[in-house]
């Protein structure tokens, strides 16, 4: 159909005026003259209004009740898709593909880049399958995991250094005091051991002395014991030493 033809102009005029009368009333003189001699246009101007009327009289339907639940489902599915897309976007931000760095280092000309586009497409990392299936199967858990993984690392507060220094200083002072105490104990122990040994000699001498014959001059036999360590002393001697040293020797043994 030639767009400049009278046939076209006539039909366009009908469309402009639709629903228009079919007898050509209201048409320009030139078009009315054409209609009188053109069988095709007469057919069209008889058929078009009928088609328009038939289409307009088609019964209108109410949306079925199922549409409500279908739309609710579509909205929920859309929300799931949105979450998955956001997860992918985050993933993309985290791991720029190596090809991107290469492309930035070696920029091609516009045309070549367009042609090469399918070749330079990055393949999705393997972890993507798992992330997407996690996102779709349990969005809440996936979200928690993402947030925990993305928590920012904290710097230790300055007070921690002060506290640790204080604590190590205290520890040093405490162990120095303990060492000094140990030296003092050993010194006092040695003194006590000396005194105890002397006393033991006297005591043993007294114990072993026994009058046999009144006439005989008294014999006072005694024994000298040298002890290099407390453990080698007899239990009785040790007991005496403990008492004499106010428990110091006992503490040393323990």
């Amino acid at each position: 159909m030639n767009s400049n033809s009278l046939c076209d102009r006539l039909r366009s005029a009908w469309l402009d005026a639709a629903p228009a009368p079919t007898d050509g009333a209201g048409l320009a003189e030139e078009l009315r003259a054409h209609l009188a001699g053109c069988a095709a246009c007469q057919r069209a101007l008889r058929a078009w209004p009928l088609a328009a009327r038939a289409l307009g009289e088609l019964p209108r339907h109410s949306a079925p009740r199922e549409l409500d639940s279908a739309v609710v489902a579509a909205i929920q599915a859309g929300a799931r898709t949105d979450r998955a897309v956001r997860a992918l976007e985050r993933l993309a931000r985290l791991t720029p593909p190596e090809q991107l760095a290469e492309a930035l280092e070696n920029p091609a000309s516009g045309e070549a880049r367009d042609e090469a586009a399918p070749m330079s497409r990055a393949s999705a990392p393997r972890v993507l399958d798992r992330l997407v299936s996690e996102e779709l199967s349990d969005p809440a858990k996936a979200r928690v995991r993402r947030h925990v993984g993305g928590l920012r690392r904290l710097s230790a507060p300055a007070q921690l250094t002060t506290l640790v220094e204080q604590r190590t200083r205290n520890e040093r002072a405490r162990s120095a005091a303990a060492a000094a105490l140990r030296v003092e104990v050993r010194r006092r122990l040695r003194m006590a051991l000396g005194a105890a040994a002397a006393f033991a000699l006297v005591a043993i001498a007294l114990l072993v002395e026994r009058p046999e014959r009144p006439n005989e001059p008294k014999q006072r036999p005694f024994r000298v014991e040298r002890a290099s360590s407390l453990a080698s002393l007899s239990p009785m001697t040790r007991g005496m030493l403990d008492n004499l040293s106010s428990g110091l020797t006992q503490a040393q043994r323990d």
Partner: protein
Amino acid sequence: MHSDPDHKLITACQQSLLEGLEGPFRELYELYKDRVYNVCYRITGNPTDALDASQETFGIVFRKIREFRFESKFSSWVYRVAVNASIDLKRRSRGRELASLEALDELGPESERVRHTVADERTEMPLRAAARHELEAEIQRAISRLSPKLRGITVLRYIESLSYEQIAEVLQISLGTVKSRLARAHEVLDRELTPVLDRYYLG
């Protein structure tokens, strides 16, 4: 474009945290569901596909309503989404479409199963109702034979009664293209429908 009759509802949707089919979005849905369903029904030609396309339409509208900037009428945008969803669905299921048209033929005019109840038909004489069903099936078949572009424009013009200007806005084409496509649609419809319409209206 603040003259949009739905401006208030759309703004309410954009400002609230939409969780689902509720609040202002529910109101918009109620306003548009029949219009959307009818467009989808006439373009897809069967209730099952019409339901799917309507569902997709409202899913898209829900997801994108925040991005709507009133550069066209909201109704134009909704119609565009519905027309595109229906045509896409039709492309995806061309085989199914043929099967369903054949099924429509086999079931005949008495069958109510693939058609929705028309409110006024119980008051009509049974023969008249049967003839209407037959006519409806014929017209639907003729629409289905139009190319997707012509089908969309025909439905918007004669079933939704949109002006040429609004059709141009919906389909994002010029007024001249609207009219030339409508003329081409008429050529096809004439071949399919003239004998039937003559019989029904004139015979």
